[in-house]
């Protein structure tokens, strides 16, 4: 059991480092270590240093940096034991436009072997999806699902057509 855990841990660690650098920049450092103590109980420490910074612990990272680091970790674990589908519920909310692009690139890469279902309010994420569904409540309290094309979604949103991005 212990040997198996170490094998899995090493594979997750290598995945984490490579996904982290693809989400941040090439030179950024990230690592996973098992803390001292009984290997079957010990906690797992994460270090992440995006864009040349030196945070002493992941608590000092910003909201967006934490989200990307957590996504890198989840995908690193996922690679070891791939599940055929993955649901992401508004995980992209804290990300700025540049990080949304990186997030979409990662998902696209994985979507060759995995199916993704993404709930989002972000227009860039919507655009990247191959199929788009709108859920509405035309009748109060009763959900209805309609299939939408992205250009259609834009026209439907009556509010002011600002040049936003």
């Amino acid at each position, binding site marked *: 059991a212990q040997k198996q*855990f170490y*094998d*899995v*841990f090493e594979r*997750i660690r290598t995945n984490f480092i490579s996904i982290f650098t693809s989400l941040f920049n090439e030179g950024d450092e990230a690592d996973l270590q098992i803390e001292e103590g009984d290997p079957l109980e010990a*906690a*797992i420490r*994460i270090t992440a240093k995006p864009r040349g910074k030196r945070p002493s612990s*992941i*608590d000092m990272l910003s909201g967006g940096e*934490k*989200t990307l*680091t*957590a*996504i890198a*970790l*989840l995908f690193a*674990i*996922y690679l*070891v*034991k*791939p*599940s*055929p*589908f*993955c*649901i*992401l*519920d*508004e*995980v992209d909310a*804290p990300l700025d436009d540049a990080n949304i692009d990186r997030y979409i690139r990662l998902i*696209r890469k994985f*979507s*060759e072997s995995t*199916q*993704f*279902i*993404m*709930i*989002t*309010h972000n227009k860039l*994420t*919507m655009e*990247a*999806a*191959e*199929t*788009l569904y*709108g*859920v*509405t*409540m035309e009748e*109060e*309290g*009763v*959900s*209805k*699902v309609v299939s939408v094309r992205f250009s259609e*979604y834009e026209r439907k949103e009556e509010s002011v057509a600002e040049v936003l991005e």
Partner: protein
Amino acid sequence: MYLSHIEILGFKSFAQKTNVKFNTGMTAIVGPNGCGKTNVVDAIRWVLGEQKASTLRSDKMYDVIFNGTKSRRPLGLAEVSLIIDNNRNVLPTEYTQIKLTRRLFRSGESQYLMNGTECRLRDINDLFMDTGMGPDAYSVIELKMIETILSNRTDERRRLFEEAA
């Protein structure tokens, strides 16, 4: 293996029969607040055998049955079917398509069906053993989880690693 489509009737805010067909790649679900997007995710977790009402944001399991609005009476049954395409024979069965159905009556009676024939929850769990498809698999990622996965206090991170081992 991928999710082909889902049919929902009487589950949470889906008072009318609803069918959502998934893309093998990236499917996005969009729409205003409170209209039923996360309810679709709950329906997927539920039909895959989720036993804890709290994971479905409910007090008791029968709370998932449509409980009425100002103009509609509550329903007596919640039924969700998930159709899975077994294209790479990942699932240990000769069927190329599997239809999983879960029903719950307000009386408390609950049923599981596989391709139309009644079965037990154990049969569904056996089918998904080691494929990453079960209700506990980390294939649903919400924003709230980001804080827990990165926080040093919980052993949630350790649990994810062990599950992958």
